[in-house]
């Protein structure tokens, strides 16, 4: 048994498989009880053949007999295989030993069954069919891991070999020595139908044994093709992701150089503005010049934050809130905001522009999410947390299914026809600033996003400095 095969077996409900194996063995053992009347019908058909002199009844009797025997053998075989390949036995033994153990177990079960229910079984044909089936199982199961396909192949092998039992030609080779097949054969000989039985036996044995091998080969080829398709699909996805990342990186670099170019006119504005201020130290013009200077400073900060993403500043939590509030679109009358800021919050050490952008992304998600209520309620809370602050954004939208909660961090995943970049971006920014982000959601009840940011005093404890160094080092290497 290969490692991958074992993994599959271990992964798909081992207890269920073991229970299925036991159930199949019990069914196989009780098979003669379930189909007692069919067995009796076989005897009746043989009697009818002798009485009427019609060998056609013998063929029908043989078909019924072979169907019953092959199904019983296959059920016992499948039960044993399920049990053996689901226990540690298969991993401890060598493949040939597993083969022999399976062989002996199935023969033993047949023998026990014939002793208990006194229903005849044919050891030679069963043994040969078992050897072929186990050989095919080894080939088939390693490739497909599919018990249904194994069953389809095995039942054909058993059915093919059962036909040898009713052929008078094979009588010297210990085939068909129990009472029912023997009765079929002796009746056939009496009715001068031994050639018919030989021909019928071959006519079923050869096509079914060939069919079993062809079916196994087809299943194996199909499984291999499927595996190849899966691998191709995974590779395609990987290539697509790589292309997307490369594109994202290129756009980012282009935007960065564009933003960098903004600094030049800004320096000119600042220079000229300072000249204006020195010329007019009083009056309205001085006031305007100061305002221009403040705006230029803000804009310069924004550009610096964007260009130097690992640059941080110590600021009050209230400053961050003010900055966020200034940028929030709050025109929609159907949206009600409730903002609660705890007092005496600790200072934080962050890249203000980027963190603000991340929080706004989360807020924008809360704004656009569909809502079943008459108005959208968004609570924006900022509270003190252990060694930092928590920003909690809670909405009463339709929420997210539990199964989709892990997907929200994937780039491109969106349920609102947005770009699907907002949350992955927010997560990256927050983590770059030594923070964390968590999403809890319940379908139809809304979503709560909690962003934790460490206080300036505890920034180092959360690996902030280390993260910055690593990122900068990576950045240097890339450059």
């Amino acid at each position, binding site marked *: 048994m290969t490692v991958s095969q074992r993994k599959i077996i271990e992964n798909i409900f081992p207890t269920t498989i073991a229970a299925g194996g036991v159930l199949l063995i019990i069914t196989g053992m009780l098979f003669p009880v379930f189909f*007692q009347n069919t*067995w*009796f019908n*076989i*005897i009746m058909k*043989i*009697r009818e053949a*002798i*009485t009427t*002199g019609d060998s056609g009844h013998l063929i029908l009797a043989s078909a019924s007999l072979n169907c019953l025997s092959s199904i019983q053998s296959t059920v016992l075989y499948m039960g044993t295989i399920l049990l053996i390949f689901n226990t540690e036995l298969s991993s401890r033994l060598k*493949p*040939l030993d597993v*083969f022999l153990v399976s062989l002996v177990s199935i023969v033993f079960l047949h023998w026990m069954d014939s002793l208990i229910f*006194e*229903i*005849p079984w044919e050891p*030679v044909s069963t043994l*040969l069919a078992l*050897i*072929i089936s186990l*050989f095919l199982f080894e080939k088939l199961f390693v490739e497909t891991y599919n018990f249904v396909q194994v069953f389809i192949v095995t039942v054909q092998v058993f059915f093919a070999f059962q036909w040898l039992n009713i052929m008078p030609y094979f*009588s*010297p*080779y*210990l085939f*068909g*020595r*129990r*009472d*029912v097949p*023997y*009765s079929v*054969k*002796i*009746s056939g*000989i*009496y009715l*001068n139908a031994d050639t018919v039985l030989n021909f019928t036996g071959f006519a079923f044995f050869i096509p079914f044994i060939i069919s079993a091998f062809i079916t196994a080969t087809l299943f194996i080829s199909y499984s291999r093709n499927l595996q190849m398709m899966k691998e191709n699909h995974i590779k395609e996805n990987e290539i697509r992701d790589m292309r997307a990342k490369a594109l994202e990186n290129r756009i980012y670099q282009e935007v960065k150089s564009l933003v960098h170019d903004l600094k030049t006119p800004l320096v000119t504005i600042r220079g000229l503005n300072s000249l204006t201020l020195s010329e007019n130290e009083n009056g309205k013009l001085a006031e305007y010049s100061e305002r221009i200077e403040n705006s230029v400073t803000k804009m310069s900060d924004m550009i610096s934050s964007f260009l130097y993403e690992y640059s941080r500043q110590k600021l009050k939590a209230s400053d961050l809130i003010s900055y966020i509030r200034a940028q929030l679109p709050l025109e929609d009358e159907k949206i009600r905001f409730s903002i609660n800021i705890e007092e005496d919050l600790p200072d934080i050490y962050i890249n203000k522009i980027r963190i603000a952008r991340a929080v706004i992304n989360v807020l924008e998600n809360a704004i656009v999410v569909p809502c079943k209520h008459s108005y959208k309620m968004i609570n924006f809370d900022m509270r003190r947390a252990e060694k930092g602050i928590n920003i909690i954004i809670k909405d009463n939208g339709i929420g997210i299914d539990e199964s989709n909660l892990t997907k929200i961090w994937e780039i491109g995943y969106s349920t609102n026809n947005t770009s699907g970049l907002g949350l992955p971006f927010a997560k990256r920014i927050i983590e770059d600033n030594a923070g964390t982000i968590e999403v809890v959601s319940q379908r139809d009840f809304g979503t709560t996003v909690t962003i934790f940011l460490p206080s300036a005093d505890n920034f180092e404890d959360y690996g902030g400095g280390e993260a910055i160094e690593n990122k900068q080092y990576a950045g240097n290497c890339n450059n």
Partner: protein
Amino acid sequence: MKRNVFRIVLIIIFALLLVLVNMPYTKKVEKMVFTLPGLPRPIAEVPVVITSAGQSTDTYIINDISNQLMIRSFFMPQAEVEHMEDMKSIVFAVGYSSLGLKLQGISYEDEKTRIEKLINMAKDNKLTIITVVLGGEQPIDERNEEIIRLVGAQSDYIIGLRGSSNEELLADLAENGNIPLTLVRKVKDISVPFASAFR
């Protein structure tokens, strides 16, 4: 690849061994068995009851042969003593079938008791007992052998198949009981010795 070749070789060896070990599949009869092609004169009278000893389908073959020979017979696979009134002979078609017994709803012990009663009744009323054993390629089954011994030892004439696994047993019974024995090559050939018992 080597492992696969090894397995295929193993399977071929196994199959060859199976064939070699079992050919010839039955033990050769070591002693000389002298059998009659048929009886020189009839020993049985009609009407005759054809019954089974072991409930195999062989009984139906004997009945068919009897009908073809137009022997006045009554076919009763489960004949009891009370059915034997006015009968002159009894033919036992011996062959044990576990499924046949189940179909009739009787146990092996019931069947043995029925046979013993019939034999005792036949002996008491001086009826002729003819034993026909068609089984040949089956392994010597303990129960089959027991029934053959039970019926064969009390028979007036035994008919069997040459080359069968029962051949030696039938020869022993015939020799010990001084019972005429006919061994035929094919099932169809039973007609001749069977007819010779009545005509």
